[in-house]
């Protein structure tokens, strides 16, 4: 009894304590917030049903179990009850199915993406066993479908500006992978041969997880990356620094040591 009360109590406080989701509990993106709301809605419906059913079951056991040895009566059942417990859950499921469509469309339907973001993807992310290879367009340019001579390349550390929707083009070089940003509630499979646009918006500056969420081989567990969310200005500066280091010709005129800076 104590256990049951504790379970119900912890279930009731869990959303407020942020126990359901990875650190920091709250989603960092507006759409993620809506996905969380959907999750909580379904959780409340299923939670209330579950607790109610268990309470009823316990009550029946308590009432009719133990010393009460009266002979049971056979009934054929109640038509009305059958209809009620078919129609009510069906109605609830239909409600959920219709209610979530808008969030789903915002998340997945390309025509609902921010047109500015879809026209200028910030990067192409290519998953491969077992790392994330990233290609950015040169600062001020638009990402093209094929590699360009001035593209910038990095690995595992995806930088993105905060506060506005951004799009990446997701590819896979070998097998199925999944691009998963847990704090932003974004998860999308990377499929060999397909280029899949994925959009997200991170509202908080920081370094967030990027993990592979599709078993992709023996090294799947170590296919970790990082989303570095920066203010727009910092992001542009990052690209410029990246450009300088990538087109480094190693000449160090003013360097007394005569050694390139990276050594």
């Amino acid at each position, binding site marked *: 009894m104590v256990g049951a009360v504790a379970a119900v109590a912890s279930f009731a406080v869990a959303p407020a304590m942020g126990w359901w989701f990875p650190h920091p509990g709250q989603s960092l993106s507006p759409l993620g917030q809506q996905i969380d709301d959907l999750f909580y809605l379904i959780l409340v419906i299923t939670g209330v049903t579950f607790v109610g059913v268990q309470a009823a079951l316990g009550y029946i056991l308590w009432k009719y179990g133990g010393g009460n040895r009266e002979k049971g009566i056979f009934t054929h059942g109640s038509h009305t009850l059958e209809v009620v417990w078919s129609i009510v859950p069906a109605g609830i499921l239909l409600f959920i199915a219709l209610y979530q469509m808008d969030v789903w469309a915002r998340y997945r339907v390309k025509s609902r993406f921010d047109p500015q973001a879809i026209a200028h993807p910030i990067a192409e992310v290519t998953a491969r*066993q*077992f*790392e994330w*290879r990233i290609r950015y367009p040169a600062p001020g340019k638009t990402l*093209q479908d*094929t*590699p*360009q*001579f*001035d593209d910038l*390349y990095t*690995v*595992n*550390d995806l930088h993105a500006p905060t506060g506005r929707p951004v799009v990446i083009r997701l590819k896979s070089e070998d097998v199925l992978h999944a691009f998963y940003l847990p704090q932003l509630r974004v998860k999308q499979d990377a499929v060999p041969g397909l280029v899949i646009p994925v959009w997200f918006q991170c509202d908080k500056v920081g370094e967030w997880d990027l993990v592979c969420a599709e078993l992709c081989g*023996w*090294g799947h567990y*170590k296919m*970790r*990356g*990082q989303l570095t969310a920066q203010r727009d200005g910092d992001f542009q500066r990052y690209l410029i620094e990246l450009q300088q*280091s*990538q*087109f*480094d*010709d*190693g*000449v*160090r005129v003013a360097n007394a*040591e*005569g*050694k*390139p800076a*990276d*050594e």
Partner: protein
Amino acid sequence: MKLHQVSSLVVIAMLALAGCGQPPDATFSSNREKLAPLLPDARKMVEKALEENFGTPNNLVAWEKFKIDYGAADPTADDDHKHHRNPGWRLVDGRNLYMQHCVHCHGTAGDGNGPTAKHLNPRPRDYRQGVFKFKSTLGGFKPARGDLIHILEQGIPGTYMPSFVLLGPEKLGLLVDYVRWLSIRGNFEIRLAEELAGLGATESDVTQEVQNDESKKLQRSDAIKAAISAASGEVAQLIEREANDLAENWEAGDLPENAIVPKVKRHAPTRESIEKGRLLFLSQYPDPKDPDPKKKTECAECHGRAGRGDGPNTEKFWEIPKSNPKRSYETAGLHDIWGHEQKPRDLTRGVYRGGRRPIDIFRRIHQGIPGTQMAGFGAALTEEEIWDVVNFVLSVPFEGKHSAYPTEVEEQKQAEKKDVAAAQE
């Protein structure tokens, strides 16, 4: 006893047996190829020298001879880092990271033969030769510490070597120092085994000696004794000499004067520069100083005229170097010093294993790629000419594509303008 009691006892006994037994201590796998020809006692000398000076994976020995930061004792270390109170903790931390991230491909001894290695192509690097492909240093010099860190940060695109950039600089430093130490250990093993073999401490030397003995009185056991006593008289000196030499080599790799630093800036990849690079690549560029009027780079011999990595050299059967009697590799094509087939890079793919910065490609062309047939052209070409080749190499993936190189775009625009102007007239 009831059945469920018996079965729970059995389960407890099984757990006790499985959980409490000590696993066998890890060992550094020995270099079978180099140790096999030696006499058993000579082999023991090598093994003893290794164990004394380098220890075992569970009990590392930090040999002070080498300029590696093994980690000085830090008496103020907190309880979570108790082992930092002992000297040599950096080596221990490096080993722990290596065992977590690297060992399954590169093996405990750095022999490139971990459990996953046989599934990979190209194979993981065997560090024991002390040869590293992608480095910033001149010719025979060891890689600088920063070169190995750079590889760990960037990974090697086109191979199974992933990036470890998220481990952060501190852990990467620990890893690189442990890898350098492993490479020194493996190289020391090879050198000592070769020296002892040179002193005649091998099975075949003894057999030959007995056979060649004209008096027919020489016993095999006496010959072995003589060979071993000769070897054991020298071994201490050999250990000293080889270790000093290795220490010197690795220190030299870190010296700034041994790095390849171009003095001439890279010039813009103009059409002329790319075209000049192409001619150099095809060995069709006139060389005014040479009686034979073409500069001999012969890039296309391996990389192919279109840069697809399919030059005529990839179809020859090459002789195995130092093979006695002479024989060729079983498969056609180039091979590296590790005996694996080595495909010249397909330049149209735009995948650069050693890095895609112009300086990376400059260094590859300047000094070649150690361990492979890629030769260095630092002596044959001027720095300007190398930059031309770099510009050409970087332009190959964009040849004839819509996403053209900037010069081509410019020329197209010019041509279009002319067309428009012509049409208006």
